[in-house]
C-alpha cells in the first residue's frame, strides 16, 4: 500500500460509521417547498366617501312630533341631521317624553296638532290606547316614520368606565316594541340583520342597496342607499329598497330580495329597518343625505285631515273670529278670549276679532242656532236642518229676523226646545247642545260653533280651550257636544240610525229612564267594580250604582281603591254584582273568583272576561250584540225572543269570553241572551242563569254592562236584581 493512500483510507474508514449511522436514521433530506411570502399579500380597504347634499326646501310650517316617551335607544345627537332638515323647512318639531320635555304632554295630545309622527328605536311597546291614537292619526292623513335598528336593543345599565360586552353581544331585542306599532299597519320587523359579504360599504353589515322604489318621492334622485345592520321587514306595503342576491339575513337563511325599508298605508307610513342611515356621520355616505332630505320633505308635507278635536291646529293661517249673533262683541267672549289666544299662540297661530272674515283668512264663527245665517251654507252642506223653538212671534209670523225666516218651526220639539236634525244621524234637542261644523277647503278652514244661547256658547268655547271632547259625538264634519254631559235622543230617529255613543262611551243614565219594576224587593247589594286588572278601560259599576242605589241598599267596592275583598267582606249581602267591565282576566283573579263563588249570596258576574278562561273551550272573541232567547225568564222581562240588543264599542277592545253552547244542556242553567248575529260565535250564550247545588242563584254575562244602551241597562239591572232577590 502506498503511503499516500493510507490517510485516505483512514478517513474513509473513519467516515463509514458516520455515514452508516446517518443513513440508518435518515434516508433522504427535506426539500422545502416554496413557502408563500407575507410580502406578496396585497390588502386594500376602501375608504368611504362622505357627501352632504344641499337641497332647496320649501317652507311648509307643519308640525312633526318625535316620540321619545318609550325609552328610545337614541343618543343626544342622533336626531340632529333629521331635525336640521326639518328646521330649514319651517317645521315645528315637538318631542314627547325624553329628559327635558314636558312630561304632561301625552302622545295622543301631541298628535292632535301634528302632521307627522317620528318613532325611532323605541324599547317599550305601545299601549292599546297609543296604538289606537296613532292608527287614527294615520287614518286621518298623518304620516308616520317608524325606525328600529338591530344595534339599538333594550338599553343596558352601564357601570362607569366599563362596558358589559356580554350584554352587548347578547342584547334584549327591542323588536317587539317597534312591532307593536308596525303590526298595526300590517308590517313585521324581523329580529335579524342584513349583510352582504360580496359588495359592501367597508363591512359586511353595511349594505348598499341599489334597487330602489321607482316612483316614490322618498327615493327620488337616489342611486343607492347604505344601511348599517338593518332589520329586514315584511308585510303590507311596498319595498323602498330591495337587496340583491348577495344580501342575506343572518337568520332567514337562503332568502333573497330582502327589504330594509317599507312604504305602507298608501304612502303614509315609512318603516326603516335601520336608524344609523339617518344619524351622523352615516347620513353622509352614499346617497343617504339625499334620502334624508327626501324624508324631511315627506314628513313636512301635510296631508292631514283635521277634525274639531284638533283645534286649533286645524287652522293653517291667521284666524278671524266672527261673532254671528249681535253686532257688538260679547263681553263674555272677550273674557274667554285670553285663553283662546293662548291656545292659538301655543299653536303658532293668531286670532283676531272681525265683523266679517277676510277672504284669505281662516274663520272661527261663534253664534247661536238662531243667528246661524252667516254659516247657513255650512249648515246645509253638512246635511243639517235646524228647527227653532216656537216663539209666539214665530207662531204668529211676526218674527221679522232674517234668521227666523230660514228656520223651519214645523219640526220644533213638543217640549219647546229646538231640534238639530242631522241627515244620516238623527235628531237632537238643541238645548244643552253645542254644534261644531268644520269646513276645510283649499282656500280656507272654517269652524262654526252654534249653541242655544250665549252662556252655552261660552261652555262650548271652553270645550275647545280645554280640548275636552269626552261628551261629544263626531260624525263626518259635524261634532255635537253635550254641554251638560248628556245627549238627549229624540224618539223619532230615523230607521237604521245607529245608536251613537259619545266617543265610544255611553251617557250618564237619564234619571227619567230609571223606573223600577213594581214588585221590586228590598235587598242589600254589593257592587264590586273589578277594575284592578290588566288592559281595561272601565267597568259598569257606576251605572249599576246609578240605577240601583235609590231602590236598594247598595255598597260600591272598587278594587283599584278598596283592594281585594275576602270572604268576611262579603257577609251580609243578598246579592253581589261582580262587574269586570272590559278588563282582561288574569291569574290573580282566579282566587278572587273563588272567594265570590264561596259566598252564599246570589250573584251576577258580568264583564268581557268576568270568569276564568279555563271554563271555556273557545278563545275570547268580539261580541257586538245580544239576542233574547228566553223571554219568559224574569231576566228577559220586557223583551221578546229574537230582540237584538246592540252593544256600544268596547273601549279597551278586550275580547269577551265565549260561553260554551253546551252549557244550556244543564237543566239548572238557562240561556237568557245569546251572542247576536254581528258577534263572533253568534248563537253562543251571552247571559246564562241558574242555581248551584246549594240553591245559590248565579248569573253569568259575557259582555261589559256599560256597553248596553242606557234604557237596556236599566231594564236588565232591575230584571237581574228581581230574579236574584226572589229567593
Amino acid at each position, binding site marked *: 500500500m502506498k503511503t499516500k493512500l493510507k490517510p485516505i483510507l483512514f478517513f474513509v474508514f473513519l467516515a463509514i460509521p458516520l455515514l452508516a449511522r446517518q443513513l440508518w*436514521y435518515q434516508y433522504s433530506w427535506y426539500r422545502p417547498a416554496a413557502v408563500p411570502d407575507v410580502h406578496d399579500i396585497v390588502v386594500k380597504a376602501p375608504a368611504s366617501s362622505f357627501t352632504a347634499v344641499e337641497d332647496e326646501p320649501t317652507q311648509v310650517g307643519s308640525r312633526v312630533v318625535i316620540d321619545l316617551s318609550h325609552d328610545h335607544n337614541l343618543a343626544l345627537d342622533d336626531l340632529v341631521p333629521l331635525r336640521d332638515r326639518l328646521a330649514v323647512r319651517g317645521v315645528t318639531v315637538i318631542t314627547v317624553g325624553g329628559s327635558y320635555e314636558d312630561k304632561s304632554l301625552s302622545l295622543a295630545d301631541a298628535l292632535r296638532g301634528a302632521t307627522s309622527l317620528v318613532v325611532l328605536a323605541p324599547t317599550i311597546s305601545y299601549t292599546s290606547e297609543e296604538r289606537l291614537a296613532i292608527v287614527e292619526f294615520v287614518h286621518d292623513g298623518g304620516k308616520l316614520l317608524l325606525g328600529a335598528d338591530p344595534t339599538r336593543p333594550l338599553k343596558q345599565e352601564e357601570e362607569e368606565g366599563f362596558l358589559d360586552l356580554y350584554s352587548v353581544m347578547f342584547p334584549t331585542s327591542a323588536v317587539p316594541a317597534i312591532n307593536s306599532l308596525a303590526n298595526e299597519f300590517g308590517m313585521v320587523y324581523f329580529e335579524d340583520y342584513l349583510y352582504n359579504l360580496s359588495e359592501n360599504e367597508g363591512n359586511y353589515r353595511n349594505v348598499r342597496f341599489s334597487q330602489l322604489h321607482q316612483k316614490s318621492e322618498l327615493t327620488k334622485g337616489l342611486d343607492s342607499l347604505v344601511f348599517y345592520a338593518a332589520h329586514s321587514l315584511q308585510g303590507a306595503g311596498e319595498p323602498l329598497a330591495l337587496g340583491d342576491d348577495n344580501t342575506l339575513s343572518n337568520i332567514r337563511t337562503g332568502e333573497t330580495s330582502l327589504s330594509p325599508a317599507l312604504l305602507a298605508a298608501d304612502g303614509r307610513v315609512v318603516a326603516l329597518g335601520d336608524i344609523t342611515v339617518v344619524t351622523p356621520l352615516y347620513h353622509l355616505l352614499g346617497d343617504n343625505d339625499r334620502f334624508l332630505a327626501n324624508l324631511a320633505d315627506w314628513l313636512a308635507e301635510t296631508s292631514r285631515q283635521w277634525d274639531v278635536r284638533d283645534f286649533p291646529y286645524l287652522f293653517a293661517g291667521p284666524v278671524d273670529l266672527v261673532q254671528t249673533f249681535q253686532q257688538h262683541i260679547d263681553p263674555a267672549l272677550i273674557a274667554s278670549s285670553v285663553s283662546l289666544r293662548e291656545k292659538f299662540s301655543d299653536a303658532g297661530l293668531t286670532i283676531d276679532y272681525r265683523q266679517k272674515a277676510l277672504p284669505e283668512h281662516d274663520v272661527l264663527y261663534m253664534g247661536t242656532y238662531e243667528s246661524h245665517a252667516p254659516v247657513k251654507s255650512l249648515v246645509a252642506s253638512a246635511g243639517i236642518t235646524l228647527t227653532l223653538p216656537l216663539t209666539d212671534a214665530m207662531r204668529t209670523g211676526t218674527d221679522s229676523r232674517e234668521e227666523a225666516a230660514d228656520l223651519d218651526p214645523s219640526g220644533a220639539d213638543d217640549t219647546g226646545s229646538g231640534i238639530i236634525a242631522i241627515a244620516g244621524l238623527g235628531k237632537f234637542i238643541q238645548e244643552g247642545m253645542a254644534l261644531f261644523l268644520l269646513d276645510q277647503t283649499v282656500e280656507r278652514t272654517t269652524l262654526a260653533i252654534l249653541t242655544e244661547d250665549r252662556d252655552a256658547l261660552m261652555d262650548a268655547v271652553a270645550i275647545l280651550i280645554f280640548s275636552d271632547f269626552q261628551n261629544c259625538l263626531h260624525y263626518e264634519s259635524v261634532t255635537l257636544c253635550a254641554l251638560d254631559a248628556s245627549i238627549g235622543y229624540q224618539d223619532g230617529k230615523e230607521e237604521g240610525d245607529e245608536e251613537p255613543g259619545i266617543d265610544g262611551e255611553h251617557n250618564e243614565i237619564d234619571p227619567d229612564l230609571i223606573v223600577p219594576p213594581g214588585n221590586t224587593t228590598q235587598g242589600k247589594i254589593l257592587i264590586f267594580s273589578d277594575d284592578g286588572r290588566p288592559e281595561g278601560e272601565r267597568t259598569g259599576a257606576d251605572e249599576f250604582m246609578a240605577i240601583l242605589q235609590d231602590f236598594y241598599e247598595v255598597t260600591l267596592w272598587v278594587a283599584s281603591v278598596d283592594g281585594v275583598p275576602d270572604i268576611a267582606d262579603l257577609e251580609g249581602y243578598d246579592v253581589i254584582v261582580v262587574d269586570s267591565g272590559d278588563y282582561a282576566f288574569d291569574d290573580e283573579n282566579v282566587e278572587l273568583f273563588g272567594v265570590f263563588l264561596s259566598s252564599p249570596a246570589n250573584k251576577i258576574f258580568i264583564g268581557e272576561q268576568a270568569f276564568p278562561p279555563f271554563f271555556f273551550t273557545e278563545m275570547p272573541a268580539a261580541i257586538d250584540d245580544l239576542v233574547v232567547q228566553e223571554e219568559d225568564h224574569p231576566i228577559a222581562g220586557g223583551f221578546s225572543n229574537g230582540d237584538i240588543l246592540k252593544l256600544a264599542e268596547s273601549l279597551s277592545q278586550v275580547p269577551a269570553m265565549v260561553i260554551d253552547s253546551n252549557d244550556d244542556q244543564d237543566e239548572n242553567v238557562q240561556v237568557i241572551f245569546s251572542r247576536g248575529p254581528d258577534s263572533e260565535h253568534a248563537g253562543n250564550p251571552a247571559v246564562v242563569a241558574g242555581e248551584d247545588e246549594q240553591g245559590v242563584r248565579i248569573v253569568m254575562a259575557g259582555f261589559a254592562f256599560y256597553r248596553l244602551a242606557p234604557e237596556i241597562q236599566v231594564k236588565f239591572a232591575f230584571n237581574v236584581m228581581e230574579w236574584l232577590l226572589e229567593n
Partner: protein
Amino acid sequence: MSNTQLPYPQVPTANPLKRLGGFLLWVVVPLALGIYLAYSLVPKPAVGIIRINSDIWFLTAHFVNMEIEEARKDPRIKAVIVQIDSPGGEVTATQEMYLGLQSLRREMPVVGSIDSVAASGGFFAALATDPVYAKPSSTIGNVGVWGYFPDDLGVNDVILASGPFKLTASNKQEFLREIESVKQEFLQTVVRQRGDRLKITTVDLSQGLAYHGREAMNLGLIDRLGSQSEAIEAAAKLAGLRKYDVIDLEVVVYEKMYGEGSYYAGLPAESREWVGRADPLTGKRTLPPGLYLLYDVRLGSVR
C-alpha cells in the same frame, strides 16, 4: 541437491506484527474512531413538538418562538409538528407565531396537528404548517377579526394633543378599515397557503364560520384526518427519517427557563396567563380595546 537460484530477487517477508499494526492503524482505528464520532456527531434524529394550547397573546408567541429556536439549535430536531388547541387571541401575537413557523418551514418540515380547536388565530397559526392534520370533530376556521373601539373623543380645552388621533390613534371609520384590512390579510393568507387545495370561496370563508374537521378537509382548510402520531410520522417522513425520537419542545423550553421539573410542577398561574383569559368559572374575559383573532362567544366585561 543443488542450490538453485530463483530468477527473481527474493522479497523479504513482511513482518506480521507490522502488518497487523498497519491494519489496526489504517482500518480499525479509523473505523473505531468513526463509530465513536458517529455516536457523538450523528445523534438519533428527533421530531419536535411545538405546542399552542391556549389563548394567543404575547407570552404564547414568546414561548412558541423559543420552541422554534430550540428546534433550530437542537441538531437532533429534523422536523416539527405544531400541536394546536387554541381559539386564537391577539392579532399581532398570532402573526408573530405565524411568521416564526413560516421561517422554520424553510428549514425543516412543519406539520400541523389540530386537537379540539383551531379557530380564528389558532387557524391562522395552523396556516403556517403543511400539511395540516385534524380530528374529524375538531373545530376549524372562524376566519375573521373583530374588535371594539371606544367612542370617538370630542375636542376640548382641557386635554390637548399634537394631533386629532393622538389619544385614540384611530376613529370608528378607520377602525372599521383596519378590521377590513386584517380580514383581507387573513383571507389572502388562507388562499396563498392552501392554494389549489382550497375548495371554498373567500366570500364564504369571510362569513367566519367554524367547520368540523371532516368538513374542513372537504373544503381544503386542512389536509388529513389523523392523530398526533400520524402527524409526527408525516413530519418524519418529510424529513426522510427512518428512526427518530420525539421531543416536546415546550417542556424543553420551560425547563431551560424555570429549571428541571418545572413544567410538570407548574408555575404560578399569573405568570403564564393572559390578562384577557376567560375566567374558568364564569367564562368572562377582560379585554383591552383592540383587534382580536379570537373565537369566543362568552365574552364578558371589557375595560
